[in-house]
């Protein structure tokens, strides 16, 4: 005999259960992925630091120095996009392999990891050129900013910013190799933590004193300091570029070491099974 549906049952109760089922399902994913803390807590805090520090920088600009403050912010966004586009190009190149489950196929060819990075960075250069042209063109058109006004001194700074972007991408790749696809959000999360702490738009002296020690250990802080000096035709640009170069080399070494160690862990712990 067929069972019948109870006619007198209140409809609200099963509806609430279904809502609860969906809420619990998403809550479980959130609490089991520490990386999602970025979306929930870290990004808002980072935004506060970023805009608070821009405001502090503007507030403390000397009389008649507001033009220089504005230049610093516009130059900062153009320079920042070198880091941003370089990082995104390499990191999303890796995700392309990861999402389409191509990693096992690539890992068993003669391809070296470094060759993969260089190939991805090479195609990424096209994206960098396109992205930075869009930003620099907009800045030139709307704000009269000429990114090449500082002269040839800007070239090594741009090179260092590219290297910073690629090194940060390797750190993200290392985290994804180790922790899995849940870490992919760090591609953007890591950048937007580094953005305010590196003083892309203002000197690190504009940062709250509590976070300045974090800024001091970030190689990108020194590269952006050099970029600001070059943009402002400062006499200290040369020494700052040298310091930025050393800091960038250190970041590249750390990121290459990190991604190498993560790849070893990936192979040792059989994480390739994630793609089966």
């Amino acid at each position: 005999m067929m069972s019948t549906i109870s006619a007198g049952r209140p409809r609200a109760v099963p509806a609430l259960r279904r809502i609860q089922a969906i809420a619990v399902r998403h809550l479980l994913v959130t609490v089991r992925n520490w990386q999602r803390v970025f979306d929930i807590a870290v990004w808002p805090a980072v935004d506060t630091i970023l805009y608070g520090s821009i405001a502090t920088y503007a507030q403390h600009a000397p009389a008649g120095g507001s033009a220089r403050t504005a230049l610093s912010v516009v130059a900062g966004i153009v320079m920042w996009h070198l880091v941003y586009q370089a990082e995104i190009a390499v990191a999303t190149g890796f995700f392309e392999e990861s999402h389409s489950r191509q990693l096992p196929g690539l890992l068993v060819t003669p391809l070296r990891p470094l060759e993969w990075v260089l190939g991805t960075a090479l195609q990424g250069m096209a994206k960098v050129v396109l992205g930075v042209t869009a930003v620099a063109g907009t800045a030139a058109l709307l704000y009269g900013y000429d990114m090449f006004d500082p002269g040839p001194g800007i070239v090594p700074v741009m090179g260092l910013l590219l290297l910073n972007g690629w090194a940060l991408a390797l750190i993200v790749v290392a985290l994804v190799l180790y922790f899995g696809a849940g870490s992919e959000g760090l591609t953007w999360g890591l950048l937007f933590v580094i953005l305010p702490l590196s003083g892309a738009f203002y000197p690190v002296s504009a940062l709250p004193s509590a976070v300045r020690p974090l800024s001091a250990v970030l190689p990108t802080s020194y590269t952006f300091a050099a970029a600001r000096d070059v943009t402002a035709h400062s006499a200290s640009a040369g020494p700052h570029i040298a310091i930025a170069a050393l800091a960038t080399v250190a970041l590249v070494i750390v990121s290459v070491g990190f991604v190498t160690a993560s790849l070893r862990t990936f192979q040792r712990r059989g994480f390739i099974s994630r793609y089966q």
Partner: protein
Amino acid sequence: MTEHVMSARDLRKRYRRGVAVDGVSLDVAPGERVALVGPNGAGKTTTLMMCLGAVRPDAGTVEILGQRTERQRRAVLARVGFAAGYLPLPPHIRVIEYLTMFGRLYGSPDPKGQARAALDRFGIGHLARAIGTEMSSGQRTLVGIVKATMHAPALLILDEPTASLDPDIALRVRTSLLELCQSEGTALLVTSHNMTEVERLADRVVFLMNGRVIVDGALESVAARLGQSNLEDVYLHLSTIPQASRARRAT
């Protein structure tokens, strides 16, 4: 001259969830077709991945064409092909572009020409301009096998190549593989859950269970040795006997 195309010795791998491979030794001779079979979790894929160097063994060694995989990775992998039924083709890329990329990775002087020739060999030249997502699973599997074989490997490693394929497509894949192995002398190491497929494709079968080799022998002799009429019955027989007995049998 190297006696074996591949020689794995006492491979061991333990994951957090337990032992995956527990002392597997496996030789594959030139032109030999070896099937690695066993239930889910027996250690087949982990064994294959260790042979390919994609998973690092806790202990044991793998030599391919006389060279240790972990020391001469690039040289070894240049002579090995790999495809798996569970690995898709990338989206947004045409078959010919995908195969050309792999031709370049294997150092082919004419990757595009090699890709076209390989597609024609498997009778799927008409798929050259298709995109992975536009094709049936059988066509994708064939393209995966073309990718694995286009650089004329000495050893072809296939993980579940015909899983979830229709019988007619699976037959076409098997026929193409047999032709390749016979004409090129390519050695084949393949995993499968399909015993009928194993009987038609392999000339030697290795049963794995709980990470150990339980039975290793010529296809025609294994069933007879265990008093069974076919491989399906051998599989079922080995699945039902207790672990301790299987361990004794292995020794």
